C-alpha cells in the first residue's frame, strides 16, 4: 500500500495563503501562490501575490464534513440517506513567526498584512495546502475562506507562542496537481 508521506524535506506539508482578491481567476490555481519551486529541495523559491508560506506548522487537519439528510420508507427496513452541503475547514497549529503573524515591512498583499491582520480584518483568503509538498505531480488542495480561531498561547513550560488556526472554507475544495516546480 502506498501512503502520503510528509516526512522528508521534499514532501513537507505546506500551507500557503494569499488574499482572495489577488487570484487571477474565480477559483485558485497553483500559480496564484508561487511562480517557482524546486523539485530538488521541495522548497517554494518564489512566491506570487505576496503569499504567506505559513511557517512553524505543527499539525494540520483537512475537514470535509458532509451534511446528511435521512428519511424512512415503509417498504424498507433501513433508513435512506443522501449527503448535503459540506462544512469545509482547514485547521492546525503553528508556532508564531513574527513576520508571518504581524506582517512584513514591505509587500503588497497577505505577506505585508500578516496572519493576524487577515483574521482581524476578516479578509477573504485563498489557500493552497500541499499534503505531500509541491514537487511535480503532487496533489494540492485549494480554496478560499476566512481565517479564524487564532488563539496565541504561551506558558511557563513552553515559552514560545503557539496558536491554533482555522480557515473556514467558502464552498468546495479544488483539487489540483503541482506542475510549477523545476
Amino acid at each position, binding site marked *: 500500500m502506498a501512503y502520503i508521506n*510528509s516526512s522528508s524535506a521534499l514532501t513537507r506539508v505546506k500551507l500557503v495563503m494569499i488574499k482572495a482578491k489577488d487570484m487571477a481567476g474565480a477559483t485558485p490555481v497553483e500559480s496564484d501562490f508561487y511562480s517557482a519551486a524546486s523539485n530538488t529541495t521541495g522548497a517554494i523559491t518564489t512566491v506570487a501575490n505576496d503569499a504567506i508560506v505559513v511557517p512553524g506548522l505543527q499539525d494540520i487537519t483537512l475537514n470535509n464534513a458532509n451534511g446528511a439528510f435521512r428519511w424512512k420508507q415503509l417498504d424498507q427496513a433501513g433508513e435512506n440517506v443522501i449527503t448535503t452541503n459540506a462544512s469545509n475547514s482547514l485547521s492546525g497549529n503553528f508556532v508564531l513567526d513574527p513576520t508571518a503573524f504581524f506582517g512584513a515591512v514591505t509587500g503588497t498583499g497577505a505577506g505585508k498584512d500578516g496572519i493576524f491582520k487577515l483574521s482581524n480584518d476578516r479578509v477573504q483568503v485563498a489557500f493552497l495546502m500541499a499534503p505531500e509538498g509541491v514537487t511535480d505531480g503532487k496533489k494540492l488542495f485549494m480554496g478560499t475562506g476566512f481565517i479564524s480561531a487564532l488563539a496565541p498561547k504561551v506558558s*511557563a*513550560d*513552553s515559552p*514560545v507562542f503557539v496558536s491554533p488556526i482555522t480557515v473556514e472554507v467558502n464552498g468546495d475544495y479544488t483539487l489540483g496537481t503541482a506542475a510549477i516546480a523545476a
Partner: protein
Amino acid sequence: MRTELLAYFSTHLTGTIKLSGELPWEQGGQALYRQNLKRIYVDDEQTVKSVLQPLLSEDDIMQTVTTVRCYLAMDAKNKSSDLDATLAVFAQARTQSGVTNSFRNEMDITTELDQSVEIYTIEYRFYTVA
C-alpha cells in the same frame, strides 16, 4: 553558565567556605572536594538538547538544558558556622547569577555522608530555547 556561577560565588562567598576555580578532578582516586574541605568546586557544564515544539518542517524548536554541578565537602562533626549562609548563596544563585537567557532555572541540593565527611552536591539546571 559555569562562568556566571563562578563569578557569583566569588563575589558572595566571603566566609570560611571558599571557592576554587578548579574543576573537581580526582587526585589519587579521590575527588579534590573530598580532600579539600570547605572548598566549592564547580564542574563543567553538561548540555542536553530536546524538542520543545515539534514542527512538521525539519527545524523543530529545541530547548537546551544546561546542568552545572557544584561540590562542597566538610567535616560532619564540625560544620562550618557559615554553612547556612553559604547554602543561601547557592539558592540565590539560581536566579541571581546573571544567567539571563533561560526561561526556567532549577536547583537541587543533595547530601551524602562519606565516613565523617558530608558532601553537598548542588545541581543547577538552566533551560533555554535554542
